[in-house]
């Protein structure tokens, strides 16, 4: 009798909790889109290149939403997070870490991501002459990550290493951090570290444009795919505005020629909807590394 009642109570409480959750999620209400939509983009290239890349998108959004859109550029990653924080931009294109920082500090809401953004992986590469074929073989060797703040060069690989019970600081003899992906690869080639962690796309492009030779390295390990970049909006933006923006992105289809140009400029085949859950692993590791609070 008690057990049945307790079970029923459990369900009652669970239902209550879920009601509560639903109630909480529906709490925020905001306005529609602002009269002028300010778009901030990650400064991962020169301002001219960025303007060229995003201008078609700006024009498309402006036309399809029927409002003025402006591109805003920043000097570095930190500046775009701060700009988002003080409300200078409504829509922002973040890297993985910048996004979780903006989410932790300013409740940034993820909107969409490129089809390619959810298919990132990182390689652990070694010189071709090294004989070990898996990570265990490089125990007590030196490892080189990319920048400390790099999602693909450090954070996500660290997360997936931890999943294999590998703590770099104890598993490897030495942990290096290089400024860029190129530097990581060069460090491995020069023998500064036995193995290096590098963004798979960048590595492949380095191979493709001949900066490294294909036979120089072998890939010891590839991480599972993870998400990196994301378009996010201010939490003050209402549901309607958010939906309008997202639909505009989702409507970009490679089947239309003008859309194809916009997408090609951004290196995308199309956009997928995105949620915060996409970045839960990154969030976890960023918390652990005390990069966010």
């Amino acid at each position, binding site marked *: 009798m*008690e*057990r049945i*009642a*307790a*079970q*029923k*109570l*459990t*369900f*009652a*409480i*669970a*239902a*209550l*909790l*879920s009601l509560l*959750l*639903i109630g909480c999620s529906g709490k925020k209400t905001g306005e529609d889109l602002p009269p002028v939509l300010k778009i901030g983009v990650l400064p991962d290239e020169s301002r001219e290149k960025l303007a060229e890349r995003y201008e078609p998108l700006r024009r498309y959004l402006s036309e399809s939403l029927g409002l003025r859109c402006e591109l805003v550029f920043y000097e570095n990653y930190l500046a775009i997070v701060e700009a988002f924080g003080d409300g200078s931009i409504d829509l922002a294109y973040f890297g993985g870490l910048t996004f979780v920082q903006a989410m932790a500090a300013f409740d940034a809401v993820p909107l969409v991501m490129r*089809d390619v953004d959810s298919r990132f992986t990182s390689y652990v590469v070694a010189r071709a002459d090294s004989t070990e074929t898996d990570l265990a073989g490089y125990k007590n060797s030196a490892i080189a990550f990319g920048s400390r703040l790099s999602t693909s060069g450090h954070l996500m690989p660290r997360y997936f290493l931890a999943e294999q019970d590998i703590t770099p600081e104890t598993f490897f003899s030495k942990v290096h951090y290089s400024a860029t992906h190129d530097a990581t690869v060069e460090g491995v080639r020069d023998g500064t570290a036995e193995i290096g962690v590098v963004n798979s796309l960048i590595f492949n492009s380095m191979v493709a444009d001949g900066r490294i030779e294909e036979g120089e390295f072998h890939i010891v390990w590839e991480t599972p795919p993870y998400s990196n970049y994301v378009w996010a909006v201010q939490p003050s933006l209402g549901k309607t505005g958010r*939906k309008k923006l997202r*639909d505009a992105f*989702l*409507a970009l*289809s*490679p*089947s*239309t*020629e003008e859309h*194809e140009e916009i997408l090609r400029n951004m290196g995308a*085949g*199309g*956009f*997928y*909807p995105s*949620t915060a*859950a996409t970045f839960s692993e990154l969030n976890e590791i960023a918390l652990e590394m005390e990069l966010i609070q």
Partner: protein
Amino acid sequence: MKAIGQTRAKPTWWFSNVGTYRFVVYGVNVTLLMSVVSFMEGQRQNYKSTTERMNRYHLTTVAEAIAVREHLHVVEDAIVARALEARPPTAISSREPLLVAYPRIGTVLYLVEANIEKITTAQSVFHDSNFEELAARSKRQFSDLRANISDGLTQPSKVESAKRQLAGLALTVEQLRRLHTMEYDKLATALPLNNNRHVQLVIAIVTTLLAVSFVFTRQIFKMIERATDALSRSEERYRTLLESAPNAIVIVDSDARIVLVNSQAELMFGYRREDFIGQPVEMLIPLRYHDRHRQKRQKYLQQPVLRPMGEQLDLCGCRKDGSEFPVEVTLGPIETEEGIFVESTIHDITVRKNLEQEAAEYRDTLSHVSRISTMGEMATGIAHELNQPLTAIAAYSFTAKGLAEQVTECPHELREILEKLEDQAIRAGDIVQRLRKFATKTDSVRTITDLNALVGDVAKFVEPDSRKAETVLTLEFDEPSPKVMVDEIQVQQVLVNLIRNAIDAMQETPTSRREITISTRALQNGQAEVTVSDVGKGLSNDELEHVFDAFYSTKQGGMGLGMRISRTIVEAHGGTLWAKPNNGAGVTFAFTVPLENSHEQ
């Protein structure tokens, strides 16, 4: 002890209501719980079925989208590989042109169409514009693609366009899949008991707490039940003890409010049990003692020991009707958690008091009688002493009269004086004799006596007094004269008393109206009645009530013994003596004595 205190405070309440209280609480709890549970369970079932349905459609969409993606890869490969190998468009004229023209592409596109159809159908349950829009878009893109391919992939530009359409369709379907995955994840998180550790933890804790509290509630109720039973039993035992006590028992709390009484107390004070409870104990005490009692009871609480209450005081109880009665009270403290309760054992001592009073009165009478008899003996002695000188006076007077007759010159007046002297001496001797006879303590000897003659003798005896008081004595004799069995002297004494009193009662009555009527009458009940009526000032009700009490007197200087003695004498004869006011003025005293034949019977 505490519990007993509580039960005492509301004995009936406790018994009748513990059960009720428990059942009400339990009932309400269970009802509330069950209704909440069933409501929540209903909601949950509802939610669950909705969620499950949604899940199903989400999953359908996701699975179909994946299938579309795979099929589109095949189509893409096929387009790239075989476009230019296609048969001429002229062949595409039959019922299934696409199948005929591009059998592999056509087949797969049929599969894709079926996939998209399923997706579109699944979307209808969501009523979500996102899904509907994307589903519609995928359908549109699919028909564009099929139309394009059906046209014949005869030119490179057509192949490029088909590839773009393919990519567009693939994107739309992938967007749809991702949206559904997101929604599914959201639902999965919200779905109770799902793979969310925090929710599970919270639920586990809440469940445990609820189960524990539920079990505890039951335990507590059981404990209450047991405690109540134990209390009931001890209460029952206590009650039996109380009820079997011979005396009234009243228990009060430290504020002197009555918390428990037994049925003897109900009988004694005339209140019902519920009238007692919660009332100050002073309700049982006459008003005039309330203040004193309040002070005393405060003192008692400072030194509560088992002891009699108000020693050397005549304690009085007060019934509901206001009547008072003498009591004896024993006080005893009962220590409870609510302070000191006081148990009063009350004993009605009315009967004993009456007996005591009667005994006291008896003692009074006895001492009076002994005084009378002492006086009688003294009188006898005096009479004896006086008798000789009186006899001597009479003898000397007789001698002096004889000597005077022998003297011729003796004046006539002297002879007369000597004669009167002799008469008075003889009369004094008679009086002394009568006094002696009257006061002589003799054993009571009852003889058959003529009542009229007895009354006549007494009338003669008191005649000098009545004449002096200018009072007429009227005798009304019953004929034939009743023969009574009495001690003649004692009854004479009673009559003398009554007549003297009557004479005294008429001192303020005008001389012309002073009259005493004495009557005799034989009654049917074997008694003869003698009445003595005066027309004096009469007696008040109070005086009538107390006229037979010892040492009660309406006369100045009266000893207040006459009537008491008279009643004792009459009652000793088996008769009664009473007084009643006359219709007009005065009082009639009457007494009865037994007729001779009644005595024989």
